[in-house]
């Protein structure tokens, strides 16, 4: 799906800083890829490159074997849905009105919304458990509720690729699990490709299929969830004393701070 070849990125300004250097990675289609790393390691920057919010300084990114810049704006919006870390919330819209904008790539500025669109919107709201406040103002929602509303908009967008920048940062544990579980199940049901920046090691180990770890703007590790949840790997990535315990009755492991 997404293929990066020797991609690097520099900040603007008089003294450009290299934020990402020489990244070569291929995000597998139909899988849940997680980007992890310590603060400032370039996770969000990489995701913005994929979402076309940043332009690479060198190297090449392709989506479906087409160079990223060659997709038209609308075409790209139909293929890739992106949720930034802190989206600007239009305070005057109701939840349903906001989610309805997920259909914009398909209906454009003037097209009528058909029954099919409303079905998609309803379904997205149901999946993210926001149907209950469909007619409330987005501004009146809590941080976690807003995050779910945004996710619903992305689902209504109906794009095969989801790019999520810390989609669960404001959610409580229950909702974190629900949302990640939802994303994981959507992935297997309709073949969604998900690329997410995530912080919680255990959630990554539990739900992600493919993991890319960054350190100082460089790729420092990539592999599967099973290989990720190893003491040595985690210590190497986060440069912190982390330990891992295998759970007795499950294939999963949990981490702890040593």
């Amino acid at each position: 799906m997404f293929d990066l070849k020797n991609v690097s990125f520099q900040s603007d300004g008089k003294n450009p800083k290299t934020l990402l250097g020489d990244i070569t990675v291929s995000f597998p289609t139909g899988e849940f890829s997680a980007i992890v790393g310590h603060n400032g390691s370039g996770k969000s920057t990489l995701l913005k490159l994929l979402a076309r919010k940043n332009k690479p300084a060198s190297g090449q990114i392709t989506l479906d074997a087409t160079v990223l810049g060659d997709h038209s704006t609308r075409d790209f919006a139909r293929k890739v849905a992106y949720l930034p870390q802190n989206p600007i919330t239009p305070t005057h819209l109701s939840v349903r009105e906001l989610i309805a904008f997920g259909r914009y790539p398909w209906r454009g500025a003037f097209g009528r919304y058909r029954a099919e669109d409303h079905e998609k919107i309803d379904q997205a709201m149901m999946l993210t458990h926001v149907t209950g406040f469909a007619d409330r103002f987005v501004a009146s929602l809590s941080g976690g509720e807003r995050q779910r509303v945004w996710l619903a908009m992305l689902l209504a967008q109906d794009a095969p690729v989801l790019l999520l920048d810390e989609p669960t940062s404001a959610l409580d544990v229950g909702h974190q699990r629900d949302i990640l579980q939802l994303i994981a199940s959507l992935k297997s049901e309709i073949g969604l490709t998900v690329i997410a920046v995530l912080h919680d090691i255990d959630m990554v180990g539990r739900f992600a299929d493919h993991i890319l770890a960054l350190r100082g703007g460089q790729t420092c590790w990539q592999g599967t969830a099973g290989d990720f949840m190893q003491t040595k790997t985690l210590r190497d990535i986060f440069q912190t004393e982390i330990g891992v315990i295998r759970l007795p009755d499950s294939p999963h492991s949990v981490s702890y701070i040593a």
Partner: protein
Amino acid sequence: MTLPIHRIPALLCLVLALATVAVFVTDILPFAKIDAIGKVLLAPDETDFDQILFHYSTLPRLIMGFLCGAGLALAGAAIQTVLRNPLAAPTTLGVGAGVEFALTVFLLLAPAAAAPFQEAVALTGGMLALGTVYLIAARRTNATLWLILAGMIVNLLLQSGTQIFLLFNEQYLQSVFMWGAGDLAQNGWESTIFVLPRVIIGMIAIFALSRPLDLLALGDDTASSLGAKVTLLRIVILGFAVFITASIISAVGMIGFVGLAIPAALRIAGLTRSRDLMIYSLFAGGFALLCIDFIVRQMNGIGGDILPTGAATALFGAPFIILILRKARIMPGQQSDDHHQDQQIISKNTLSLALFATLLAGIILSLFVSLNQNGLAFLNGADGFGDIITQRAERTFAAIICGAALAVSGTLIQRVGRNPLASPEITGVSSATALAMIIALVFFGFGQRAELMMIGAAGGIVSLMVLLLLCRKFSHAPHYLLLNGLALTAILGALVRIALTRGGTQTSMLISWLAGTTYFTSMTEVMVVAGVTAVLLTVAIIARRPLELASFGADQATSLGLGINGFQFMIMLLAAILAASATLLVGPLSFVGLMAPHLARIAGYRLAGGHLLGAVLIGANVMMVAEWLARNLLYPQQLPTGLIAALIGTGYFLLLAIKRR
């Protein structure tokens, strides 16, 4: 008193001081050759014209230049510190305009016996203007921006008030305008001796209060917990700053931008403590104005034309302030003013219908009912019925159409710029339109209204393009739009003054148009503007979905497949065309473009389509009322509609401020 040395500000002062010395030497050099320096400074040879000229004109002018610059910069520094607002200054907060207005009214109306009270009147005018501005802005979430916004509104209002007042007393026009433009030319020591002690008293008082000033800079809560009487202190210090400003304006007229630019520049150069800032401001301001005045004098020598120094400082200062404040990033970020926390989503159909009904009823009333010496008068079928109706219809429709056009323009700019304070008037589009028309009329002699309209529209569009280019990096930061408007409005003010000192037959028509009269419009023009407005409004309503999407911000909008740059550009273009065509009919002053979308939003028109319609209805209503009042309030005198609309707007914002308390 030891001064901590700040390198850049000190260097700046030094350069300005050297330039001042150079100016002085240039002026006095001819006398050094004939060994008459001492003589010319103290007791000139009464038979030598050059010596008399130097002693009684050049020398006082130099000193006056320094005094005015120093005084205004100091007042600016004090006001900026007290209000904790880097854009505050005597001129931006309406003090200058208030003093000017009060003095103009006093000079033209008061009996000669009242002369001793002139200073008190000037001071009161300045304080009242400042008080109004402060009242409008206080207790808002982004008071910094509101203060400047309110200052701009009050400024424009008072300026056109002054101009209209002069219009009714045309015989004094020329001399008062010359004075109003900030003329430093001296013919004796009289004014200098008038200003000197006053400015010095003000300076001493402000310096004596420099420690409490530092305290105020910490914020009200900290200051009061440290034992300062915050409100009293603030009023006293502002009082002295206004006193200095009033003295200077009484003597030489309006001199803009020194009080804003000098302290702002020094602050950016690294001065933070208020006493240092004030000391450096004093010298830098004095030297700077003296040097600018020198340049102005040289230009007068060449061209033979009179360019008043005050107007020149505005011309120099306005672009400079944009450059400087771009670097500063001192303004707060984007903040929405009103939160609709858990409001009910209600249909606005009833309100819309009511507004529409009011509009229809208003039109009929406006056509058939007028006010004369005997009270209300109803038009009857008798003499000249058709003529009167046609005339009234022309002006009423002109006002309504302008209200609608400005409302659409304002709504579009506010939405696409994601900035509730933006409007064609605030962003300078209206000013630029006026500017282009005045330049074409006065300096190039275009006289046809059709020609002027085209030129004006082009001017408005160009200014918006420039603004968009400048804003690209800042993604429409709210202060940036405001700054542009501030600068353009100041340039407009300066050019209008210059144009008016040149006189000409069309001066009074120009003043009336600037103040927003609908007197000169013809039905054809109204129909053209109405057509343009109707078409563009339809376009905007059809494009309501992407317009809504634009409020998600550029990143999200692109993610959802909207080519935001092209779209923003298109919408801003629409807004500029609308603003320009409305400005052509009623002039740049009305603030309907700010007020109508604001009111519509508060009334609960949320979504783009409704917001547009609501704003149009409100804008049209406001302008209709303003037009009727303008026509009838002082019958048979005709007031300008724009001025009345701006008054309504100011009243509305004041009311809002009072309700908040």
